Structures are given as C-alpha cells and as structure tokens.
C-alpha cells in the first residue's frame, strides 16, 4: 500500500520535473538551448519508464525504456549533426 503510494508520488514528481524542463524547449532563445532541454526531458521520461517497469514488475516495460534510450540517442545525434553543418556554413 505505502509502496504503491510512493511509486505514484515519485511518478508525479518526475512528470512535473519533465514539464518544468520543457520550458527550455518551448521558450529557449537559441536552438542549442532547445536541444539541451530535449536531452534533459528525455532523461526524466526514461526515469519514468524504468520506474513503471519496477512498479509493475514486467520485463516488457524495461524493453520500452531500452529502445527509447537507443533511438532517442540516434535522433539527438542526427539533430546535432545538422546543427554542426549549419554552423559551419556560417549562418
């Protein structure tokens, strides 16, 4: 009973902190600010996924966190590669 309550409370805390870190994504003045916000928010979301996997005690839920970690890294890598090329062009 208290364990479920603690899991719910920590889940709400992680959602709230990811929404707070979304501020930098939405109103960040420059594009590197937005990328940094995306990275921070994805770390918080990953923590939520692992927390739910520990709460439900299912291995399938951990696979979601693993796949998101790999493909989120690939996506951020593509974004930074594009940013590097645009910066080198002198824009």
């Amino acid at each position, binding site marked *: 009973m208290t364990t479920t309550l603690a899991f719910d409370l920590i*889940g709400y805390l992680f959602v709230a902190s990811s929404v707070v870190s979304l501020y930098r994504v939405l109103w960040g003045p420059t594009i590197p600010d937005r990328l940094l916000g995306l990275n921070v928010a994805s770390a918080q979301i990953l923590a939520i996924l692992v927390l739910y996997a520990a709460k439900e005690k299912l291995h399938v839920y951990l696979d979601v966190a693993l796949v998101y970690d790999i493909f989120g890294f690939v*996506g951020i890598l593509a*974004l930074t590669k594009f940013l590097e090329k645009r910066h080198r062009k002198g824009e």
Partner: protein
Amino acid sequence: MIEILLLVHLILAILVLSIRSLFTAVILMAIFSLFSAVLFFVLHAPDVALTEAAVGAGVSTFLYIWIVKRTQKEVK
C-alpha cells in the same frame, strides 16, 4: 498523470503547427513523440509505446531532419 500528459500534448501540437523555424518544429515533434510514448506506456500498452519510441524518436526525427537539410529552413 494522463490529464497532465494530454495537456502537454495539446500545447506541443499547437506549437509544432504554428512555429516558423522548421528545425525547432522537428525538435518539438521529437519531444511530442516522446510524451506520446509515455502516454501509451501509462495506458498499459507497452508494445505500442515500443513502436512509438523506435519510430517517433529515431527514424522520424532522422527523416525529417534529412528533408529539412535538403530543402528550406524557414516557412515562407
């Protein structure tokens, strides 16, 4: 939990459609797919969340950034 996630979805979708810079729109779409993966996960559909995380965060972001790189940077 679901209400907060749906509110974030609404704000992000309106911003993705209305923002001028296409690169920023791609970043916002990446974070939209991230939150929708969490929404599917919270609604006890881990297989849908797995597909959304793989396609939305990785392949879709890569594809969109490739297209933006080859065409225009801003909305006219």
